[in-house]
């Protein structure tokens, strides 16, 4: 099999997996929230409501597509794909497993191991912001504009702490490439702790997590789309599959951020103390590493859901205050300490 065919299969796999995560997350969100709120979730469409996402998808596809008269038509149509596509594209650099040997060829389980790694993800996140902003502005309605305004300010300001946290990772590992960072996180540290970024960079992890919640527009940072104030904010005027793209894009974004967290801070596809390649064959090792990665990602996705249904949301000025007055100074202090320690230990 030629290289490009292998890459094509990997791309298709990534797309299907990202979509599946988004679809299953809608079900997980509703059932997990029901569990936390002492009620049943959807349980009519199929056993345990497992066909509920299918029902939702069919509903969204078959609804009438309305473009409001006062909206700017081209931008209105451009908004949702501009939001959803960068989220999908970010999966290209996610290392979802180690090597797999098929037909004598060694294939790394990552679509493309570019040497700018997570810088690419940050850049795509910035483009994703455009999707929300254009959606809000093009709708030409006051609630959407307020949502778009809030989205702009929030997402751009929280990219800075995220960048600062990621800079410390670069200092620690000396590379942007995600695969290299995961490889460097195998083994143990100080004798008994796994060599994960979480133990070497606890403050960086916290800053990154908070910024990730803000980038993903999830409670407590979901002001651009909060229901009680702005009647769903920037996607008020959207219906049918355009809205579907916004909602899907949000879940895919969540998946990407969870994957990045796992890769940078929690050792990616490796189990903590066990080196699986020693007792598993080459094919099963690849599959096993994928499963380990997927389990870790699933935990962080569940954490997104858990936090959403527990805490209230911020007010706008408190949110900006947290980003600029709390996280950025913390990020800078973290950067200096890390730089100092790296300099002293090498």
């Amino acid at each position, binding site marked *: 099999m030629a290289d490009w065919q292998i890459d094509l299969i990997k791309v298709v796999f990534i797309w299907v997996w990202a979509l599946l995560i988004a679809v299953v997350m809608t079900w997980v969100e509703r059932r997990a929230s029901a569990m936390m709120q002492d009620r049943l979730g959807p349980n009519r469409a199929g056993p345990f409501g497992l066909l509920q996402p299918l029902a939702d998808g069919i509903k969204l596809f078959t609804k009438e597509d309305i473009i409001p008269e006062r909206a700017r038509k081209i931008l209105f149509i451009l908004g949702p794909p501009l939001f959803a596509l960068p989220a999908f594209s970010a999966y290209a650099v996610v290392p979802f497993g180690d090597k797999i040997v098929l037909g004598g060829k060694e294939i790394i389980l990552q679509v493309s191991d570019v040497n700018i790694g997570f810088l690419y993800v940050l850049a795509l996140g910035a483009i994703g912001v455009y999707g929300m902003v254009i959606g809000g502005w093009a709708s030409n309605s*006051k609630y959407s504009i307020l949502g778009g305004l809030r989205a702009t300010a929030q997402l751009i300001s929280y990219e800075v702490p995220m960048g600062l946290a990621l800079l410390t990772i670069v200092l620690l590992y000396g590379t942007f490439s995600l695969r290299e960072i995961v490889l460097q996180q195998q083994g143990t540290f100080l004798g008994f702790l796994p060599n994960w970024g979480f133990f070497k960079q606890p403050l960086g992890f916290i800053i990154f997590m908070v910024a990730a919640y803000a980038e993903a527009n999830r409670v407590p940072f979901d002001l651009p789309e909060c229901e009680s104030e702005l009647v769903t904010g920037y996607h008020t005027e959207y219906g049918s599959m355009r809205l579907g793209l916004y909602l899907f894009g949000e879940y895919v974004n969540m998946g990407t951020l969870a994957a990045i967290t796992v890769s940078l801070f929690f050792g990616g596809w490796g189990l903590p103390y066990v080196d699986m390649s020693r007792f598993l064959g080459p094919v099963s090792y690849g599959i096993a590493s994928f499963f380990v990665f997927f389990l870790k990602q699933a935990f962080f996705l569940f954490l997104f859901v858990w936090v959403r249904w527990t805490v209230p949301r911020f007010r706008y000025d408190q949110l900006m205050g947290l980003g600029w007055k709390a996280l950025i100074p913390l990020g800078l202090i973290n950067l200096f300490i890390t730089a100092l320690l790296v300099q002293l230990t090498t």
Partner: protein
Amino acid sequence: MSIQFSLKGKGGKGVAKQLETICITTGPVEVGDYVTLNIGPIHPAMHGTLRVITKTDGETIVSAKPEIGYLHRGVEKLGENLTYSQFLPITDRLNYCSAICNNVAYEMAVEKLLGLQVPPKAQLIRMIMMELARIADHQVCVGILGVDLGALTPFFYLIIQREEIYEIFEWHHGARLTNSMGAIGGVEADLPERFHEKWPKLRDTIRKANDETDKLLTHNRIWMDRTIGVNAFCADDALNWGFTGPMLRACGVKRDLRKEEPYLMYDEVNFEIPTGKHGDVFDRYMVRMLEMEESVKIIDQAYALYKELPEDAPLMKKVPKIIKPPEGQIYHAIESPNGELGFFIKSDGSDKPYRIKIRPPCYMVYQAFEDLVKGEMISDLIACLSSLNVIAGELDR
């Protein structure tokens, strides 16, 4: 935007004159570059059909004019055409979150007009049911305050307990929401038999739900940031605007009609009146949470007093089938979950009241809305509106 109107059956004369004297839009406009945001009668955070026309400067509110009347059903005019007992189901639809309190307030007003004193067993049953309705109303208010601020989970814990209270109402008088409890002269039915086993369990689960809500919200940093210091209001202003109920107690004035002008048998039970200090959203939330606790205590004591009465104690005073009170006018107020709910009834000697005026507690509170919200942000407006517990049925009648 131009408004055209058509009047059937009345000439258009005088309309132009009325247009001159009445501002159709929102009153005199402030000079400046402000965005008019209409938080309209249909909105996820409006409790019923309320409308607020705000002018905002970015996120800060420059002016917020409330507009009411979307749920005006002419209840007072209806009252002039129905007999005294026919009016009772209509009082349910005033504050529909705690309908029993409206019923009892009306019944007590008519009994004052007639000069009746209800037997003690009926008084205790009324007390128990009113306190259960008070707990139900506060549960909804606190739950919705959480939902509007983004904390969606405590609402479910509280609503499940409200369902249990509804079950008791259904056993007693057959309806869950619009109760029409009792009659002029007393109560029609005794406490249901299943109440005696249910109450010990229910008081524990109500306390547990309140406890869980408390753990999720009260010391949560985000909740405290959202509610402490928001809409702080001083006591003098509150009294000038005519506030009563939890809104006034949150501002620091220790005033509760159950203690100041005791009715039924409230002077024979012990309970505290929780008061706040600053009158902000956090104080209103805490006052309501603590009042739920006090209501449980009141029900316990009333129930103990009830058990001391003999089984066949009378439930109703003898009242003629067609009630014709003597001529005169009275005003009687009780402490409903929202504040002072009063009924002014003027009778002309016939079987229909001549004039009924209902004094809704949230009416006086909502007219101060612009003062409360000016200078705050849009998110604070939503928090304020939820914490006022404005119920459109009571506001518009």
